[in-house]
């Protein structure tokens, strides 16, 4: 049962061929047997999960299910607030924090009857591309447990790829949903900025952060997005655009599509990644799609722009962790200033401190215009480039990650190498666009390759319609591992 796709599980549940309790027990068993190797979960409250599942089953028995999703298990990244649950953000500074409220996305999922599996591991405060920056544990890639699952939503991606859950939520600031989805051979969507409310998502970089779904099939992405999307009085950046609905999906005629690819690919892509990517493009061309090369030279500035803007916003957002109202407070401070300084210095990990310093520097007097001001303007140039591309093409296709999953520890000593893992994903956040990573075959070592498809703002309907078509290609198939070694 656990190896079935999300859409099959949903059907079985609605046809009353399985119960939510049976389903959750099967996943809990899978987690018990395999999560000692994968380490996707920071904690697990079995009784609570089974109680919620039993309540769901009672509702369905009397025909009072909350929705077609009632009883479906969903994993939650550890930076999304659930009332009464721990939310650590993978950080020691929030080790004992229990959320007093529900994030808007959680309230929406709760209304529909989803069963929460919280506590999915992540890089501390979503800062990282490998989940090695968690203060608690390193999550492993289910395809090869000597390798990273990607990050920062590595726990969410590994849980779905390891068949410990059918769907999960993550957050994406510079690639944190798409890159782990790619490295773990599953689907992961970063919606348009403003598509989904950020209320209750612990903020990293507010102008870039966006919550989105992981799934083992395209239906799970569309279903979860249809529940999450919509405006919210608690987040002024949540868009007033009409919310996404499954009725926005339609049949895509591949022969009528115009696909953009990068004219200048750069030399960082693995040979297998390059090869598989071009094979897919060739198939699309053979089916009648028009392929157009786009000038991506401005995007070589994306990582520097991203790191200036994201760290500036993080230095401001993380100033709330001061040891006063919640979170870790140092023992026996001598004076008030020590509460702030010592609590933060002991509570935050190395990468978080590095990014706070970088952001504080680029916002500081005498450097602001040269760094933050310049990066803001450069961000506009990235946005303009996409506006031009979408005059000519329907979608832009790229590999999601230039490489497949790397070894644990391989890039931890060199921050720049780690930052470059996001070379193909950060531009999308800077421009606020929707983009998905879908499976695109495996490399010579059997490690998954991901295909990133970017669409114009608020075109998730068109994007996901295309995904349900392209993901059926033989070249895009990836089989998730049943036994975890």
């Amino acid at each position, binding site marked *: 049962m656990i190896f079935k796709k999300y859409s099959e599980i949903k059907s079985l549940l609605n046809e009353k061929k399985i119960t939510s309790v049976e389903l959750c027990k099967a996943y809990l068993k899978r987690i018990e047997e395999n999560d000692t190797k994968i380490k996707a979960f920071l904690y697990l409250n079995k009784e609570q999960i089974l109680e919620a599942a039993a309540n769901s089953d009672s509702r369905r028995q009397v025909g009072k299910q909350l929705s077609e999703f009632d009883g479906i298990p969903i994993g939650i990244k550890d930076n999304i607030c659930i009332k009464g649950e721990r939310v650590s953000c993978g950080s020691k500074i929030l080790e004992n924090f229990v959320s*007093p409220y529900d994030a808007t996305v959680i309230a929406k999922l709760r209304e529909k009857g989803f069963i929460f599996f919280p506590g999915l591991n992540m890089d501390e405060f979503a800062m990282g591309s490998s989940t090695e920056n968690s203060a608690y544990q390193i999550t492993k890639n289910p395809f090869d447990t000597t390798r990273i699952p990607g990050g920062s939503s590595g726990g969410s991606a590994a849980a779905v790829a390891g068949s410990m859950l059918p769907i999960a939520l993550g957050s994406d600031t510079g690639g944190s949903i798409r890159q782990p989805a790619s490295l773990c051979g599953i689907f992961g969507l970063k919606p348009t900025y403003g598509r989904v409310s950020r209320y209750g998502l612990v903020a990293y970089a507010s102008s870039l952060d966006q919550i989105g779904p992981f799934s083992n099939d395209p239906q799970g992405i569309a279903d979860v997005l249809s529940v999450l999307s919509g405006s919210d009085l608690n987040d002024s950046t949540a868009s007033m655009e009409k919310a996404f609905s499954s009725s926005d999906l339609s049949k895509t005629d591949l022969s009528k599509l115009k696909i953009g690819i990068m004219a200048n690919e750069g030399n960082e892509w693995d040979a297998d990644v390059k090869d598989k990517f071009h094979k897919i493009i060739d198939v699309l061309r053979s089916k009648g799609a028009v392929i157009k090369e786009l000038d991506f030279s401005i995007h070589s500035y994306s990582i520097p722009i991203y790191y200036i803007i994201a760290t500036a916003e993080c230095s401001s957002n993380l100033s709330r962790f001061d040891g006063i109202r919640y979170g870790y407070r140092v023992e026996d401070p001598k*004076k008030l200033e020590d509460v702030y300084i010592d609590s933060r210095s002991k509570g935050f990990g190395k990468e978080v401190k590095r990014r706070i*310093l970088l952001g504080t520097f680029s916002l500081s007097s005498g450097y602001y215009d040269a760094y933050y001001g310049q990066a803001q303007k450069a961000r506009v140039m990235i946005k303009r480039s996409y506006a031009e591309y979408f005059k000519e093409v329907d979608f832009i296709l790229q590999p999601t990650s230039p490489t497949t999953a790397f070894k644990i520890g391989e890039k931890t000593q060199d921050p720049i190498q780690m930052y470059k893992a996001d070379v193909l994903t950060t531009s999308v956040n800077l421009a606020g666009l929707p983009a998905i990573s879908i499976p695109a075959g495996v490399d010579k070592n059997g490690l998954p390759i991901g295909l990133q498809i970017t669409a114009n703002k608020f075109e998730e309907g068109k994007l996901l319609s295309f995904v349900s078509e392209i993901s059926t290609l033989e070249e895009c198939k990836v089989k998730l591992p049943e036994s975890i070694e």
Partner: protein
Amino acid sequence: MEKDKLQSIANLAKLRFEESQLEGMLTDFNKIMAYVDKVKELDTNGVTEEEIYEWSENRVRPDILGNSMTRDEISRIAPKFENGYIVVPRVIET
């Protein structure tokens, strides 16, 4: 960047580094700065302030009195809480 400058940035950020940690942080910091410095090469003269903020709009909630967190809820997440108040160290030196 020199060590003193990084120390003053750390002060602004309310972070403290041991002498031994500062060295490594400085090396990483300079490496990252050399990389992000690339952004200065771009000619951004054609970009206006309006374009930077074009996506943002001021939207406010209706000004209606609602429920916030209760004192009891706050007491459960505060590091130190006594008699209905969050406790902090003495602020005024005597």
